[in-house]
């Protein structure tokens, strides 16, 4: 709870120099732009928007089979059900029946084959939500069951892949491993994760005029929705407009997936000529839409007596599900993060993108990075146990250097490495060494409960690996009263992007934040925007917005100098005022005068990330503009009778560069950590032998609760840090990196499991998530008890 107190000390208008500043300037702990609307219930999410006249509600009819041929479909009972207005199947899709953004292997509605249980086969529009959902359950579909592959290991065995396997290699891993003084092999298993945004997937499609269409969509990527809907409807992109004011959480799950929802609503709207809303209920959402990929990673590593890795070989197999979706980039990122913070001189990283008859997995905060790092941290932990060294010492000998040992396996020179400083600082502030000793002594006298501790680092690459996506646009409109509407290509999913970008504009124009209104993301205001993803939202859109604001500022400066007869350098914008020579005007007065003099008060801004250059055929180059760093130290206690486990204390030190908004950034760090901890402990996806996902609602899928926040939680943002690259006000991206701080929880549990073993060199056989069952299994194996 320390962090909150620190924030309270930083009042909005304080400044190190003591100079007065605008309210909501860059660097202040300003509340979320919608904070008041959130708490008073007036923030409108897509389902809260007043419904247009004649609105129909839609529902999907879904496959009950994991893999089958559709022999026949009788939808007569669906059509005859009360309130039903339209029923569509694949053959009713006007354009190509596909919403796959990268590869066209994602049918909107299944054609003659279903490839996962829950796959949409048809859609119904009816006069009420209830009528649509009830009707959708009345179909009579004749399936011819086909063999289903339900897990990545079977898929690997059968060479069932959604995309070709890929290798990234540097040096000669096999020789380095063969010649190393020590060798280990192992397998890291980590489960998937449902995004579990509180607001489910939803879209409203409204026909307008001349065949054009307007959509509300809860999406991280309005531009892609626009493009997908236009294609599915056989329209041109100019004919479709998509808007999203806010999402009730997204976490990657609303990057590619909303296209399915929006396209279906749009097809039904076009067909009926009426507005159509498609809102998935929680179960449908979890069954129909993709999640984080689960990974099985085999490794072979050679290392020296200090634990330094000399050569390493990874073989990653991930569950991509039934289609490619974003799995190519997700798995690429897993490969790029198989080093975490460690220099791997000789590395061979194989990646298999397994095709299974389960829902197609997609983006989720970290986007493959967490899974690559999960495997890597297990390797380092296994090495430490094998050598009987403290895992932190082994981590440290493997850290990237600053002048040497600083090139990643994909050939990027790391220029901003601060991981050693962060870990040193945290090790001291968390009192790691003394606590480890105390825990060892305590465990020796505690037969049933065992404690464990771990300190793990995070290094995370910032930028889209698809270089072309690293661009952004913004639109700043200044009105004659001196107030501003701000629009950019980014979307607000709760991460505080809108307030951060507004702070950038407030700072640039030197006006109070209250003078700026953030408007809904809208494809007609900023075209072709990239998804708000890859942690890059404020880096990209902040720069684009600053660019737009500076254009206006330059015009105002030029006008002021000319109008009031001074040099341009004598025009200074400062705290809602503009000093022009020896006169002072309010910002509003200058704006009004400029308007009267016919100066344009609207500007588009643009930004593209510099320096990145990456060859995706060889997987080498500079995919990332820079790296974000952090570290976490977690202590846990486990019950060796039941496998129940609990965090007792967590210390985090995270690098946000020079934070645009420390309150927002702290929220990302804390929330990301808890989400990562959930991924690795309580959140378990479970399919039955038929391939039905049985964890499809909060009754069965357990994200962290309030009581899962550790009782002692100390989170600090790295002081006096700044991005070495020229990012927006020297800040750093913070959306995804903190999720991987959760790896410390898993390793603390692993440490507690290791304390049960008579042989300290033995690697705990713990798979993630560390549910009570998995922990108990690992404890029993560590103790040499037969697995029952």
């Amino acid at each position, binding site marked *: 709870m320390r962090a909150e107190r620190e924030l309270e000390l930083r009042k909005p208008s304080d400044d190190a120099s003591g100079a007065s500043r605008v309210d909501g300037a860059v660097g202040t702990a300003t509340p979320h732009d919608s904070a008041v609307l959130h708490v*008073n219930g007036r923030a409108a999410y897509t389902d809260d928007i007043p419904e247009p006249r004649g609105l129909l509600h839609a529902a999907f009819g879904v496959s009950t089979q994991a893999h089958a041929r559709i022999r026949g479909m009788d939808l007569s009972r669906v059509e005859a059900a009360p309130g039903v207005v339209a029923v569509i199947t694949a053959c009713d899709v006007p354009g190509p029946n596909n919403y796959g953004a990268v590869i066209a292997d994602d049918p909107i509605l299944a054609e003659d084959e279903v490839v996962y249980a829950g796959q949409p086969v048809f859609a119904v529009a009816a006069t009420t939500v209830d009528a649509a959902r009830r009707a959708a359950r009345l179909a009579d579909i004749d399936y011819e069951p086909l063999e289903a592959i339900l897990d990545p290991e079977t898929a690997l065995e059968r060479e069932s892949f959604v995309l070709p396997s890929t290798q990234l290699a540097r040096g000669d891993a096999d020789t380095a491993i063969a010649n190393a003084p020590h060798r280990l092999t192992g397998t890291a298993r980590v489960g998937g994760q449902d995004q579990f945004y509180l607001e489910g997937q939803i879209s409203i499609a409204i026909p307008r005029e001349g065949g054009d269409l307007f959509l509300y969509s809860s999406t991280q990527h309005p531009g892609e929705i626009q493009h997908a809907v236009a294609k599915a409807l056989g329209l041109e992109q100019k004919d479709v407009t998509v808007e999203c004011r806010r999402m009730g959480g997204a976490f990657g799950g609303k990057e590619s997936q909303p296209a399915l929802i929006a396209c279906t609503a749009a097809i039904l709207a076009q067909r009926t000529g009426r507005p159509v809303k498609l809102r998935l209920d929680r179960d449908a959402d979890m069954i129909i839409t993709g999640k984080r990929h689960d990974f099985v990673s085999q490794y072979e590593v050679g290392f020296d007596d200090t634990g330094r890795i000399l050569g390493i070989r990874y073989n990653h197999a991930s569950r991509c599900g039934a289609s490619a979706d974003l799995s190519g980039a997700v798995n690429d990122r897993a490969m790029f993060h198989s080093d975490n913070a460690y220099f791997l001189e000789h590395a061979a990283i194989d990646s298999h993108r397994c095709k299974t008859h389960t829902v197609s997995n997609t983006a989720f905060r970290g986007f493959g990075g967490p899974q690559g790092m999960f495997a890597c941290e297990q390797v380092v932990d296994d090495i430490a146990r094998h050598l009987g060294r403290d895992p932190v010492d082994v981590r440290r000998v493997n850290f990237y250097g600053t002048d040497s040992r600083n090139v990643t396996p994909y050939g990027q020179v790391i220029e901003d490495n601060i991981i050693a400083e962060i870990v040193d600082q945290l090790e001291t502030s968390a009192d790691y060494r003394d606590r480890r000793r105390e825990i060892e002594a305590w465990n020796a006298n505690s037969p049933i409960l065992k404690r464990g501790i771990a300190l793990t680092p995070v290094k995370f690459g910032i930028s889209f690996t698809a270089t072309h996506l690293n661009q952004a646009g913004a639109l700043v409109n200044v009105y004659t009263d001196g107030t501003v509407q701000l629009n950019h290509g980014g979307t607000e999913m709760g991460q505080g992007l809108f307030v951060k970008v507004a702070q950038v504009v407030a700072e640039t124009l030197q006006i109070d934040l209250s003078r700026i209104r953030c408007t809904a993301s809208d494809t007609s205001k900023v075209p072709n925007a990239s998804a708000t993803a890859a942690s890059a939202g404020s880096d990209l859109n902040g720069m684009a917005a600053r660019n737009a604001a500076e254009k206006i500022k330059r015009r105002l400066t030029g006008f002021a100098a000319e109008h009031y007869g001074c040099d341009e350098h004598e025009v200074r914008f400062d705290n809602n005022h503009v000093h022009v020579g020896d006169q002072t005007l309010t910002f509003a007065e200058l704006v009004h005068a400029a308007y009267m003099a016919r100066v344009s008060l609207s500007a588009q801004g643009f930004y593209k990330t510099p320096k990145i250059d990456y060859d995706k055929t060889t997987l080498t180059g500079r995919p990332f503009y820079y790296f974000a760093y952090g570290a976490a130290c977690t202590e846990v206690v486990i019950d060796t009778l039941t496998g*129940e486990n609990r965090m007792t204390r967590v210390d985090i030190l995270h690098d946000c560069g020079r934070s645009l908004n420390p309150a927002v950034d702290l929220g990302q760090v804390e*929330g990301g950590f*808890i989400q990562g901890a959930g991924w690795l402990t309580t959140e378990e996806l*479970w399919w039955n032998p038929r391939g039905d996902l049985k964890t499809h609602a909060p009754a069965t899928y*357990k994200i962290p609760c309030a009581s899962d926040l*550790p009782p002692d939680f100390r*989170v600090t943002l790295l002081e006096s840090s700044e991005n070495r690259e020229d990012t927006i006000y020297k800040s750093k991206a913070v959306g995804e990196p903190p999720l991987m701080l959760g790896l410390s929880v898993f390793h603390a549990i692993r440490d507690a499991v290791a304390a049960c073993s008579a042989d300290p060199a033995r690697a705990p056989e713990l798979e993630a998530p560390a549910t009570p069952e998995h922990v108990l299994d690992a404890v029993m194996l560590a103790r040499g008890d037969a697995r029952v």
Partner: protein
Amino acid sequence: MGDAVNRTLRFLHDGDIVEIDGAAPTRTVLQWLREDRMRCGTKEGCAEGDCGACMVVVASLNEDATALDYRAINSCIQFLPTLHGKELITVENLSPATGPLHPVQQALVDCHGSQCGFCTPGFVMTLFAMYKSGAPEARSDIDDALAGNLCRCTGYRPIIDAARRMVTLERPAGRHAQPHGAATNDAERSAIETLRALNDDTALHTESSKGTFAAPTEVDAFARLYAAEPNRRILAGGTDVGLWVTKDYRDIDDVLYIGNVEALRDISVTDTVIDVGAAVTFTELMPVLLDEYPELTDLFRRWASPPIRNAATLGGNIANGSPIGDSMPALIALGTRVLLRHDHDTREIDLESLYIDYQVNDLQPGEFVKRIRIPRRRPGQLVASYKLSKRFDQDISAVCAAFSAQVENGQTQHIRIAYGGVAGVPKRALATEAALNDRPFDEATVHAAMAVLDEDFSPLTDMRASADYRATATRNLLYRFFAEATGLGATDVYTYAR
């Protein structure tokens, strides 16, 4: 029915009496709010009472009708007619659209307690119920109060801070900003008056094209109606029946609501039993039961979540008889008996004999659970209950175990062991009890008895745990009982980490 009957559903919202004729019996409060009332501040997150995005507060008259009890409930599974005679308070009622925020809301803003904001109105209402009923300060009590609300963004730290901060803030004028313990203000007095007038003891009986909702206030009328119409679905808290509607789209035509039967809402404590009416909620039961058996505190604290406990009844949980219901193992271990009633006839049976097979019980058509009789504590009685689940709070057990015994001269006496989650019904471990009774309470005997548990139960694999885990944990929980009772293992991870 004999009673005077009221055909119009009446409750208080926004300071006005809402009157609804022809309400469908299973329309949820959330559906009414969002679709009919156009009040979209209250959200649907899961439609099963597990996420809390739909949280509202229901104020009802206390026992002597002099004050209001404010309870958070999940509007997504609460049927609208159950609001009859009560006041519904939603997030919009706490502050005007533009104007001063309620201290609960202001505290969340101050602490940066919202990110995406979708769960926030639900947290606001849970915090509001806390604010009106004595906000706790201890972290574990705050956690408990928040256990029915999920947030995916913040990690909860700022929300927990807000729970502590809200009572320290300046209070704007208005009825709802008065915290627990403050004098009743005029607006609240007026609400009390209105609710008194609505609670005139006439039974609600609504009719609609989608079915009827009968809510007798007299137990005889209830028994008579159910005997005459045994196909009516008895509704108590609705925390399970609600899901049949929102999740399974089942048609429930005619509902018989037990919640307004005054005679089934009392707890009387005699020399020998705690005698609990079937319509007593868990929230009402817990102080009495846990005063007698403090060892069960963690179990009941982890029984669903506060909003579910505010609605759910002990009678409903018992009649439902789910194999994973968490109250039955403990109640069976304590030797609880149930009083069943059919029309004018009553019979009393052991709780465990109510359960015959998976979803099959001994209740006859038209017969219902009237009272639950939990024995008082015996001197020297050892009692324990353990729940294993993936998440500490608001999860369903993979295994739930309960033990009651006496150790006299080193010998185990009167041991009763019951488990949930490892058979088709909540069930006693009779073979294991026999292996322990009248034998030394020692490590060797307990180890021998652990092996016998396999004769009592043959658990299954599902999404909560594998059969192997359940079998191992079933044995190990018996060992935990022994270890705790003898001081070998003093505590569990949750107590340790608190």
